């Protein structure tokens, strides 16, 4: 675990000296501010529900950009040789990378707490759905970042990693549509597998353990696969 934190720490430092983190964070917050202002102006409702709902779509693209560098760049620069010959297990490397990106994302969400804060000034929002909404955003973001880590392990090229990440995420986002084609009982399975079917309850103020378990399972599966991909690199 100590090794994981060492790697995560290095990753966070690397984010804060690279322009990508600032550009992505700024874009994320700017878009969120736009949604927030527009929704507030037209709906006159003191809620984060619709803003967060819109941000999930933005997150689809933001997550792979945050993770594209993580393993791809190590492989391109040859620094992966350093990590894999240090007394560190492969999964510690993968988990450290993931935690690094999750920390940056959590910081972005943290800054965006400014919006609900504004709501408490201009109105009287129900804090429960805001808290659960942010928990949902963190879990969804974690799942998307872990998928990004997985695609980053597959290539040496950051752009390829990002594009693969978006494709994988979009496919897993829309997989529920397959359910409409097949009908019951498979439709339930496809709906459960879709990334897009598990965050609405959070935004409404409900934390359903099934949704929590779903996102944690996606994270575990993606990181497990990324570790295996890293291991197979040794066999080439």
């Amino acid at each position: 675990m100590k090794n994981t934190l060492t790697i995560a720490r290095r990753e966070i430092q690397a984010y804060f000296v690279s322009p990508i983190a600032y550009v992505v964070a700024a874009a994320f917050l700017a878009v969120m501010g736009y949604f927030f202002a527009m929704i507030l102006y037209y709906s006159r409702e003191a809620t984060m529900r619709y803003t967060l709902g819109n941000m999930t779509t933005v997150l689809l693209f933001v997550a792979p950009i945050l993770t594209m560098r993580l393993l791809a760049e190590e492989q391109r620069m040859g620094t992966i040789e350093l990590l894999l010959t240090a007394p560190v297990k492969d999964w510690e490397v993968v988990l450290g990378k993931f935690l690094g990106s999750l920390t940056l994302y959590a910081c972005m969400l943290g800054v965006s707490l400014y919006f609900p804060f504004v709501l408490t000034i201009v109105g009287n929002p129900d804090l429960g759905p805001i808290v659960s909404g942010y928990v949902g955003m963190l879990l969804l973001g974690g799942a998307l970042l872990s998928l990004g880590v997985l695609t980053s392990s597959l290539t040496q090229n950051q752009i390829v990693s990002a594009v693969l990440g978006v494709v994988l995420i979009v496919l897993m986002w829309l997989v529920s549509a397959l359910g409409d084609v097949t009908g019951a009982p498979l439709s339930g399975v496809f709906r459960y597998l879709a990334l897009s079917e598990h965050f609405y309850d959070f935004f409404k103020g409900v934390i359903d353990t099934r949704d929590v378990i779903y996102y944690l399972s996606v994270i575990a599966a993606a990181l497990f696969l990324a570790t295996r991909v890293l291991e197979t690199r040794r066999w080439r």
Partner: protein
Amino acid sequence: MIHVSNLTKHYGDFQALKNVSFDVAKGEILGFLGPNGAGKTTTMRILTGYMPPTSGTVTVAGYDVTTDSLEVRKRLGYLPETVPLYPEMTVWGYLDFMARLRGVDKRERRIDEAMEKVRIADHADVMIGKLSKGYRQRLGLAQALLHDPEVLILDEPTIGLDPRQIIEVRELIRGLAQDHTVILSTHILPEVSQTCTRVLIINEGEIVAEGTPERLMARLKGAERIFIQLAGADSDEARRLFQSMDGILAVDDKGNGAYEVECALGTDKRPEIARAVVNRGWGLLELRPVGMSLEEIFLKLTTE
């Protein structure tokens, strides 16, 4: 300290290592000498646990690299061919990261010591991306020394350095040998004679010669080897026959009618050997120069 036996490595159809075996004793500086693509880096990557071998076993300090990889890695310092550095980190930050990963005690002191050893302390706060090639190489070396490992594996440690820095690094490596075991690779011939206590010459995935630098140089300059496979020959008689021939310096009986003879450089004794063997009525199954002659490798090494 290091025991390698029957190591082979395939990359698809390409055989990068063919049955390589050698041992390294504690305190030795072993030099891998060979042209580019000979299998030096592959061997080192297997030793460090970065890649598993296709077959064969490697033990370092008594631990097997495939089954006890983590134990081996704890005892190794490794400088890969392309120095693995993060350009956005400072020299100190990078060494601190590596020290944490390796679980080094008294981190700050060890980092300072390593920086002193490779003379990079005055660049502690410089971004790695701004370092010159020589400083990068030294930083890579500092990283390998950080945890005072029992075994150091250095892939082309002097590449890209200027002549003065090369001398410094060689002195540094010689100084390390007292309490470390060192394996270094190079494709520069003089390097091994100046740094190493023992040399392995490796070519196309095979060890073609082994010995102290002095003995190898002597051999490199004076001999050619021929492999002979006989059928129906009396082994003592054949041996005597070869020994009696002019220009044959040594005869090596490999058993089962196989011999390797060493001839003076620049002479080709094959026609004579063939005639003599046929005159005795023995079957001559095989007669060929052994692989690439050392002379050729020597040329390749010195011209590259």
